């Protein structure tokens, strides 16, 4: 039906046609659990990199904080992923197959592998608590070097864990997630780095952590800007409504966090506040991206107009609302 069309010739042709304004693609059935997972998964990845950085630079504070947050974020990720299933008791069906065409399948395997090595790395922190003699004494001696290898292994898997979720979202018919596939992984990569650095800013700030925070926030801001402006009509949901508000607030928090990290690098309090701002910015970025996609699926024009242009092989002059 053409809203505004019909038998009144004075009304200009409708911008696009739809069936009673109903959505064409189905809005995701995923809840905010998935937006939270985007954050916790990114945090787990960022913290794992931070922990490996602590290992490499001989900084036990960063190593321990990174490993602890990695485990906590992993636990939260697993919880929210399973909770969001329609049949949570069947979560293990994810591990029936390895399916290269499904980012969720690959991501589940990646998360499982990441969890395994991260668990070993975290467990190695408890080696000094073991008795020095007997079988446990052997474990006490073996665990630290094994944990060191596992720590670097965790960090090696972390970039995949942080960015596969962008493929997961983009490989859908949700218009504004699908369109931004060239930039979304960089948003998530930056967000993961910034949140990992934020853990360091809170636990034990140093110049390296500040550098990581600045690079992460810059990546998140830059790629986010491209999502918001580089994709014509399909960028619109990233600027409008609730998603627009969330992403604007995220930008402010990320900028404040990055600047605060640099300016306040000699102050534990300012550094911790900057870290908190970066963590909050990362959360809001994930919710904003999630919401923008949902909105783009709810309104049929985001499905119809770009496809109609494609079908007509020409650009229709479409006024931005």
């Amino acid at each position, binding site marked *: 039906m053409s809203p505004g069309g019909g038998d009144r010739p004075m009304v200009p042709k409708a911008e696009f046609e739809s069936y009673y304004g*109903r959505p064409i693609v189905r809005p995701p059935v995923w809840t905010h659990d998935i937006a939270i997972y985007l954050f916790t998964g990114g945090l787990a990845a960022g913290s794992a990199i931070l922990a490996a950085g602590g290992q490499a630079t001989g900084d036990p504070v960063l190593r321990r904080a990174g490993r602890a947050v990695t485990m906590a974020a992993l636990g939260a990720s697993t919880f929210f992923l399973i909770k969001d299933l329609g049949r949570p008791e069947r979560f293990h069906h994810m591990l029936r197959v390895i*399916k290269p065409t499904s980012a969720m399948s690959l991501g589940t395997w990646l998360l499982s592998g990441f969890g395994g090595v991260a668990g070993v790395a975290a467990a190695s922190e408890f080696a000094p608590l073991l008795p020095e003699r007997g079988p446990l004494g052997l474990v006490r001696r073996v665990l630290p070097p094994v944990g060191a290898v596992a720590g670097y292994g965790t960090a090696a898997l972390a970039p995949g864990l942080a960015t596969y979720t962008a493929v997961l979202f983009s490989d859908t018919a949700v218009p504004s997630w699908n369109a931004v596939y060239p930039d979304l*992984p960089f948003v998530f990569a930056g967000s993961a780095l910034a949140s990992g650095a934020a853990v360091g800013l809170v636990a034990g700030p140093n110049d390296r952590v500040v550098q990581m925070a600045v690079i992460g926030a810059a990546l998140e801001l830059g790629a986010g800007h491209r999502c918001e402006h580089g994709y014509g009509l399909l960028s619109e949901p990233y600027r409008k409504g609730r998603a627009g508000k969330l992403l604007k607030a995220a930008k402010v928090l990320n900028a404040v966090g990055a600047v605060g990290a640099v300016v306040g690098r000699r102050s534990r309090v300012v550094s911790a506040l900057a870290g908190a701002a970066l963590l909050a910015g990362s959360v809001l970025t994930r919710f904003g991206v999630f919401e923008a996609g949902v909105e783009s699926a709810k309104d049929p024009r985001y499905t119809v107009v770009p496809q109609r242009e494609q079908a007509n092989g020409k650009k229709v002059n479409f006024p931005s609302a």
Partner: protein
Amino acid sequence: MGNSLYGPLDDPATDAGFTEAPPRMGFFTDTSVCIGCKACEVACKEWNAVPEDGFNLLGQSYDNTGGLSANSWRHVAFVEQPAPAHVDALTEAGTQFLGMPLSDLPGRVTDAPRTDFRWLMMSNVCKHCTHAGCLDVCPTGALFRTEFGTVVVQDDICNGCGYCISGCPYGVIDRREDDGRAWKCTLCYDRIGDGLTPACAKACPTESIQFGELDELRTRAAERVAKLHEDGVTEARLYGNDPDDGVGGDGAFFLLLDEPEVYGLPPDPHVPTRDLVKMWKKAGLAALSMVATAVVVFAGRSK
């Protein structure tokens, strides 16, 4: 195998690994003869034991179903619109004009004036795409390609992750609220395996829904659209019949009398997996940027 993700594919069943697969089966839904009786919706529900989806009055013409969902695997759309100038061509083509509902018997008032109004009716269904977005993204293997080239959910495997729902460019597959699993048309997998016609096609009184071998249906559809064009119904067009389209052609395709979006269909859909390789490349670059950051930050000299 070429074109497994995108592009024309001779036989999706063979591509999925079947040897000596039977011919690909499908639906051709000719909306020019649909009378909006909804027998297809009812027959589908009865045969497949699909639960009710609410007894609603939507105020959208005679459509009180709304759309395809977990609990509606056939959906009859009703579009009310001003008739094109050459609407009488349909009558000349042998289609009886039904007009608005009258209190009198059809045909008694022989010289009833035509109005400038027409109804478009279309029975929508899962497209059983050559490249099915839902099937591509399913992480459990619950969705599978049958030997007939159709796409079916195994309800004992599905864990309700919801990915298929966002993977479908047509908004067909859906999660059932009180059940948690994904459901959609099976093209009556149980019936066609036994040589029977799917329930909707069996119940259709006007042969608007035609079931058969896809190759034969495509030939039949091309003839039908040519006949309609010959008779002056220039707006008749096929939808989903082209193996070169964004989903490699639909197993269930349509003859429409207006643009697809008027019926709630996407005008130029593509399977999201079309760009999967490019997506992974971008994600790989982003992952490398994280590695580079880590190296620059932590391997650099202490400051």
